[in-house]
C-alpha cells in the first residue's frame, strides 16, 4: 500500500510541476464558459444594413426610421442600384438590404398593393433568417398601426388563445444547454486525453519499462495513474458547476450529491477510455490525435450539445447513441434543471457504468497482452 501511495505521489508531483498545463486545465473551463455564456449570442444588435430607396416618400422615410431606431439595425450604406447590393455583400459591408421601389408611398397611400424587398446575404444562413424576420416584424407592426388608424377593427370572434409555457427554462437562456456540454467536454479532455498522453509519454521516454519492472503490480500502476486525474477532473467539474450556478445562474433543483456522484462516474468512464487509448499506442502524438478524433470531435458535434440530435440523419443519430457525453449531458440537465432523481435517470446512469466497465476491461486485457 505504501508503494502505491508513493506512486500516486509521484504522479501528483508530475502534474503539479507542470504549472503551465495546470493553468490551462483550469483556465479552459473559464474561457469556454465565458465565451459560450457571453460572446456566442444569436441576438441581433446593430446589424449593418443598406438602403436602396427609390421612393423617398413619407412612408418609406417612416419605415426606414422605424427600422433604424429599433436598435437591431444600423445604416451602413445608401445604395443606388441593385448592383450596389451585390458589391456591398461581396465586401462584407452589409448583411441586409432594404429595397423600397419607386412610387411606394403613392401606392401604399392609395391602398394599392405596395411591396418592400428584404435582400439578405444568406451565406450566413442563420443571421439572414433572423435579420429578415426582425425586419419583417417591424414593417408588419408599422402596417398594422396604419391600418388601425384608418379603420378601427372589431374584435375577432372565435379566437383560440394559446398560452405558451416554456417549461424548465422560462427565460430561454442558452446557458442551460452549453454548461452541461462544456462540462462533458472539459472532463473528457482532462481525464481521457491527459491520461492517455501521460501514459504514452512514459512509454515514449522509456520510464514505463522502469515502472513495469518495479515491484508494483499492474493494477496498482493502472489505479495509481488514474487517481490523480480523477481528483483533478473532479475539481474541474466542481469548478464548472460553480461557474454555472453562480455566474450564469443555472438553477440546481436536484440533489448536489447525486450530481457529484454522477460526475465521478463520468470521469471514471472517461479515464477508462484514456487507458484504453494509451494501451493501444506508444506515441503521445497518436494518443492525442486519437482522443481528438475518436472522442472529442464526436462529443462536440454529436452529443446534442451544439446541434440538436433529432435533426441529424438516421445513421448519425444512431452513432450519437454510443457517445457517452450524451448520457452525461442528459443527467446533468436532469439533475440541475429539471430536478429529477435516479428514479428517472437510472437508464443513463446504467449506460455510463456499463461503458466504464467495458472500457476498463478492454484496457486491462490489452495491457496484459502487451507486457506478457
Amino acid at each position, binding site marked *: 500500500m505504501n508503494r502505491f501511495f508513493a506512486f500516486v505521489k509521484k504522479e501528483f508531483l508530475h502534474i503539479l510541476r507542470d504549472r*503551465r*498545463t495546470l493553468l*490551462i486545465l483550469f483556465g479552459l473551463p473559464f474561457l469556454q464558459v465565458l465565451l459560450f455564456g*457571453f*460572446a*456566442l*449570442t*444569436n441576438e441581433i*444588435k446593430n446589424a449593418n444594413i443598406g438602403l436602396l430607396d427609390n421612393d423617398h416618400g413619407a412612408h418609406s422615410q417612416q419605415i426606414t426610421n422605424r427600422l433604424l431606431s429599433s436598435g437591431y439595425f444600423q445604416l451602413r450604406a445608401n445604395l443606388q442600384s441593385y448592383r450596389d447590393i451585390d458589391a456591398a455583400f*461581396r465586401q*462584407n459591408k452589409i*448583411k441586409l438590404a432594404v429595397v423600397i421601389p419607386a412610387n411606394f408611398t403613392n401606392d401604399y*397611400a392609395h*391602398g394599392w*398593393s*405596395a411591396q*418592400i424587398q428584404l435582400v*439578405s446575404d*444568406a451565406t450566413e*444562413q*442563420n443571421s439572414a433568417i433572423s435579420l*429578415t424576420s426582425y425586419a*419583417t416584424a417591424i*414593417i*408588419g407592426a408599422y402596417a398594422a398601426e396604419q391600418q388601425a388608424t384608418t*379603420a378601427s377593427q372589431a374584435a*375577432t*370572434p*372565435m*379566437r*383560440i*388563445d*394559446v*398560452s*405558451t*409555457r*416554456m*417549461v*424548465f*427554462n422560462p*427565460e*430561454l437562456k442558452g446557458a442551460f*444547454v452549453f454548461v452541461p456540454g462544456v462540462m462533458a467536454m472539459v472532463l473528457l479532455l482532462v481525464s481521457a486525453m491527459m491520461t492517455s498522453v501521460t501514459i504514452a*509519454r512514459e512509454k515514449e*521516454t522509456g520510464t514505463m519499462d522502469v515502472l513495469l519492472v518495479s515491484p508494483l503490480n499492474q493494477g496498482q500502476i493502472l489505479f495509481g495513474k488514474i487517481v490523480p486525474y480523477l481528483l483533478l477532473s473532479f475539481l474541474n467539474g466542481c469548478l464548472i458547476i460553480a461557474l454555472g450556478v453562480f455566474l450564469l445562474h443555472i438553477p440546481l433543483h436536484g440533489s448536489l450529491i447525486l450530481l457529484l456522484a454522477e460526475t465521478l462516474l463520468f470521469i471514471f468512464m472517461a479515464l477508462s477510455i484514456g487507458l484504453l487509448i494509451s494501451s493501444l499506442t506508444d*506515441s503521445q502524438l*497518436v494518443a492525442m*490525435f486519437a482522443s481528438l*478524433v475518436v472522442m472529442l*470531435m*464526436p462529443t462536440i*458535434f454529436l452529443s446534442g450539445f*451544439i446541434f*440538436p440530435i*433529432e*435533426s441529424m*440523419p438516421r445513421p448519425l443519430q444512431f452513432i450519437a447513441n454510443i457517445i457517452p457525453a450524451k448520457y452525461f449531458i442528459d443527467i446533468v*440537465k*436532469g439533475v440541475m434543471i*429539471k430536478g429529477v432523481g435516479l428514479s428517472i435517470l437510472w437508464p443513463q446512469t446504467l449506460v455510463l457504468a456499463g461503458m466504464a466497465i467495458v472500457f476498463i476491461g478492454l484496457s486491462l486485457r490489452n495491457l496484459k497482452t502487451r507486457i506478457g
Partner: protein
Amino acid sequence: MKRIAFLIEKEFKQIFRNKVLLRLMLVAPVLQLILLSYAANFEVKNLTIYLVDQDHSTFSGRLAGKFRYIDNFRFMGYLPTQKMAYQQLQRGATDLVLVIPPHFERDLYRDTQAPVQLLVNAIDGSKAGIASGYANTIIRNFNADVLIENFPIVPGAGQQLSVVPQFWYNPRLEYRTFMVPGVLFELLILIGALIAALNIVREKEIGTMEQLNVTPIRKYQFIVGKLVPFVVIGMVQFTLGLGIAVFLFKTPTEGSMLLMYGFALLFLLLCVGLGLLISALSDTQQQAMFAAFFFLVFFILLSGLFSSTENMPRWAQVLNYINPLRYIIDVGRSIMLKGSTARDLQTQFFALLTLTLSTIALASWRYRKTV
C-alpha cells in the same frame, strides 16, 4: 539551400514512417467535414408532441389532426392528464405538450375566445422558441380555417403592404452551404498548428533537438525546413477537403479557385507559424498540446463558424481583430459563395498577412539554438 532540402526530406521521412499518424491526419479532416456537414444543423425537425385532450369534441379532434400529418412534428399520442404529460417532459420523452381544456369547443362558439395551453421543453432555449413558433402557426392556421367556415365574409382589404424576402447566395438557406467553407479552414488550423507544435516539441523531448542545434544549420534554415513540410501537408488536406466540399456536398464555387488557394497558403503559413511559436514556448508535448488547444478553442468559438461575429459583445469583437480564423472564414464564404474578388477582400488579406508575418517573426525570435 541544400541543407534546407535535407531537412525537409528528413521531415517527410519521419511523417511517412508514422503510418498511424498519417492515416489519422488524412481521416480526421474527412471525418470532421462529413460529420459537421451532416450533423451541424440548427434546423428544428422531428418535434415530438403529446396531446392532452380534455374536451373530446370535433374541434379538439381536428386541432389534434393538424399535428398528426405534418413534416416538423411527430405525434406521440394522447395522454389522459396534464400531470402525466409533465412527466413525459421531465423524462425528456417529448418536446411539446398541447393541452386542450374541457369545453374548448363550447367556449369557442359561445365566447369570443377559447384557451389552449402549450408546454414546451425549453432547456434548449433556441429550439424551444422555434418549436413554439411552429406550433403557434399551426394553431393560428386552424383558427383561420374555423373562422372562415363560420364567418365566410372576408373583411375589407384596405391598405396592403407585403414584404418579400430574398436570400442571396444561398436561396434554399442550406445550412451545409454555410458551414462547409468555414469548416475547411477550421480544419487547417486544427491540424496545421497542432501537428507542427507537437512535432518540434517532440524533438526537444527526446533530445534530437540538441543534435540539430549542434549542426551548422542556421536558424532561418531550421524554420523554413519545418514550415515547408507542414504547409505541403496542409495543402494536400485542403485539396482533399475542397474536393469533398465541391463534389460530395456540391458547395457552390462562384469565385476563383486560384484566389482560394492563395489565401489557403497564406493561412497555412500562419497556422504552422503558430505551431512553431507554441513549440518554442513549451517544453513537453503535453504543454504544447494544451496550449494549442487553448488557442484553438478561443479562435474557433469566436470565429463566426457557428454564430455571427457581428452580434458578439464589444470585447469579443476587439479580441477578434487578432483571430486569424475569423478573417479566413470570411474569405472562404465570400469567395466560394459570393464570388468575391481579390479587391473585395483586401482588408482580410492585409490582416492575415500582418498576423502571419508577426507570428513567424515572434516564433523565430523565441527559437534559440542555445539550450
